[in-house]
């Protein structure tokens, strides 16, 4: 494994090792480009993962202080946990469910398709599905996505079978076990899914793709990639010409270090990435780096989510097998006749008993609540993934008072649902309940959104520099050797889980960066 000198200014320094940063790091390393990845969390490998929800949360989750505001229920129930994401090598690819869906064509064109919605800041992506298709194909091959490249889909578990039976009764057509980056058969040196469950707690079989045990070791094997765990980035530095020159971070021993770099890519997820840019103020960039537009941190999206759990008079054991075991795609279309624009997916989801208690209806107590838990073995569940409407005032800012252990202002997350989001969620609640009632549910629960797992849009991509933070390559409009490589690039969220698109963008970005380097543009 390579180690690079702090003063080696020929390296590309990437902040974050998840879907965006981990993939970009490996792709650059494969091209012979030297890379240092700074990862805030520790390195927990497969044997370290714990099949226990709270213990795993303690091991993997990003628990550093954050603050919240806005009318979203998370701000009330989990005021210091706006997001449920990972602080560990591999980032949130350790905890993701594996769903790997492509955007639909219209979903790259939110503004032209949905029009000018009052209270929204919709914008078209500066790229199209046609441009992305070859990169999606590379990502699906890399990740071993089921239902692509001749890879069979996974077998459905009990939770899926309930969803499928109900959905078919309702007349839904596109119902299957999903496009999952979980091996249905051995592939790429990794074994097949053992239906363990606990997909959110780190995959103990390695059947699920994660940068932790795919991209990162492959990159390290080239001798061009160094991953530095427990390295918390504080600020990005720049020179008098306004080009970035390196990243200041706190190392595992609590010492402040500075890694020089030829280029910097920010991939710390949509809360930390804008926070890092906003914390990187200077006389030249008083509003923070890459923020001449004032758009850094704005347009925060989290998908219109929610869950429907249902109780039957017979057992389901929803927790057995893959957490996200199947999907209904029929509602993932733009049909304003339903009373809202954009669409949503319904995907199975299960929680163990401890997290069901914590998330089924936060704050609830008494027999109405506990009788639901009494029927835990008879419970099935699904998760709603709908497109939410970007809004300028939904944003990540620096908390004016609260600072972290390193004295840096923490991220403060403000979110208010758009009216369209509420209409979509209510539609999805009704359809989800109808699916389960069609096969005999005796009781259904419209469960509110969890702390956000899909955090998007806070450094959005735009054709015009005044509308966003990065261009179509994820390169910041203001600083040409500064890139954004995670979901914060998203111009709009689409009705699908974001990881496949983050990975496809990272592969494409690596190609673009290598070209810029060989042309001496950066």
């Amino acid at each position: 494994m390579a180690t690079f000198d702090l003063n080696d200014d020929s390296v590309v320094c990437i902040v974050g090792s998840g879907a965006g940063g981990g993939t970009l790091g490996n792709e650059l390393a494969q091209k012979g480009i030297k890379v240092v990845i700074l990862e805030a969390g520790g390195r927990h490998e497969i044997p370290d993962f714990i099949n226990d929800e709270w213990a795993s949360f303690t091991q993997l989750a990003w628990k550093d202080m954050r603050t919240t505001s806005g009318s979203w229920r998370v701000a009330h129930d989990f005021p210091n946990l706006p997001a449920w994401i990972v602080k560990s090598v591999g980032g949130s690819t350790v905890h993701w469910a594996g769903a790997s869906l492509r955007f639909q064509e219209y979903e790259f064109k939110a503004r032209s398709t949905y029009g000018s919605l009052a209270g929204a800041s919709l914008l078209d992506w500066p790229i199209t599905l046609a441009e992305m298709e070859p990169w999606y194909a590379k990502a699906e091959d890399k990740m071993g996505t089921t239902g692509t490249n001749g890879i069979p889909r996974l077998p459905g578990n009990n939770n899926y079978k309930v969803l499928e039976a109900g959905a078919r009764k309702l007349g839904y057509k596109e119902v299957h076990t999903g496009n999952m980056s979980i091996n249905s058969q051995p592939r790429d040196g990794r074994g097949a899914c053992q239906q363990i469950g606990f997909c959110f707690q780190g995959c103990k079989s390695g059947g699920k793709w994660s940068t932790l045990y795919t991209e990162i070791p492959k990159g390290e094997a080239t001798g061009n990639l160094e991953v530095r765990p427990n390295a918390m980035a504080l600020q990005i530095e720049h020179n008098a010409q306004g080009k970035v020159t390196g990243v200041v971070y706190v190392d595992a021993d609590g010492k402040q270090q500075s890694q020089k770099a030829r280029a910097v890519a920010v991939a710390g997820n949509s809360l930390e990435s804008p926070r890092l840019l906003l914390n990187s103020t200077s006389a030249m960039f008083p509003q923070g780096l890459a923020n001449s537009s004032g758009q850094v941190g704005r347009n925060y999206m989290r998908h219109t989510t929610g869950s429907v759990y249902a109780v039957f008079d017979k057992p389901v054991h929803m927790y057995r097998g893959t957490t996200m075991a199947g999907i209904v795609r029929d509602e993932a279309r733009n049909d304003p006749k339903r009373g809202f624009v954009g669409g949503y997916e319904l995907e199975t989801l299960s929680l163990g008993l401890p997290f069901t208690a914590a998330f089924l209806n936060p704050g609830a107590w008494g027999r109405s609540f506990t009788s639901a838990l009494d029927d835990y073995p008879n419970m099935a569940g699904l998760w709603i993934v709908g497109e939410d409407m970007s809004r300028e005032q939904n944003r990540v800012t620096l908390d004016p008072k609260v600072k972290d252990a390193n004295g840096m202002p923490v991220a403060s997350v403000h979110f208010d649902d758009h009216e369209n989001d509420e209409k979509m969620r209510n539609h999805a609640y009704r359809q989800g309940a109808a699916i389960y009632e069609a096969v005999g549910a005796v009781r259904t629960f419209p469960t509110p959104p969890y702390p956000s797992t899909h955090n998007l849009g806070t450094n959005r991509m735009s054709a015009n520099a005044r509308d966003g933070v990065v261009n179509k390559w994820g390169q910041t409009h203001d600083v040409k050797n500064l890139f954004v490589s995670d979901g914060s690039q998203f111009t709009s969220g689409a009705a699908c889980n974001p990881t496949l698109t983050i990975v496809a963008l990272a592969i494409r970005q690596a190609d673009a960066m290598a070209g810029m380097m060989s042309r001496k543009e950066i």
Partner: protein
Amino acid sequence: MRQVDRRTKVSRRVFLRGSATAVPAAAVAAAGVSIGPEAVWAQEAKNLKPHTMATLVLMARDIYPHDRLADVYYVQAVAGYDAKAGQDAAVQKMVEEGVAQLDAAAQQHHKSTYLVVAWEDDRVALLKGVEHGALFQKMRGDLLVSLYNNKEIWPKFGYEGASADKGGYINRGFNDIDWLPQA
């Protein structure tokens, strides 16, 4: 379908001596334990009054009532407050005052302490009067972990916990549902 055995299992004989938290709850549940200040676990509290400990246990049951759970699991879930009260005078004050407030309301409406108000509905009405108070809020949040993260109760809810060490569910019923109507 493979079902989960929900019966309480006692792997070895344990006597009801010492702190309740040091004894496997399943053993205590099998032996039987009741809620009251005279109980061994309540008498052994060092920093909170036995009456307070007993009231906390009944509050815990009334907040998250599960008839399938013996009292001992609620005893276990609140046992930590005694130690916390010893470490932090503010916790001790918050707990004792919270219980005193609840008892005052019980006296007003039922001329008795909370602990002996007979009907759950009546006790729940009293709890609703204090549900925004510090003690109730603390207990409701803490119990989500101290009660539901007790692995001993998981089988009673048909939850099997860790599975990787057992080879996952691929050969243990991940798709064994047998009652669904044919699509």
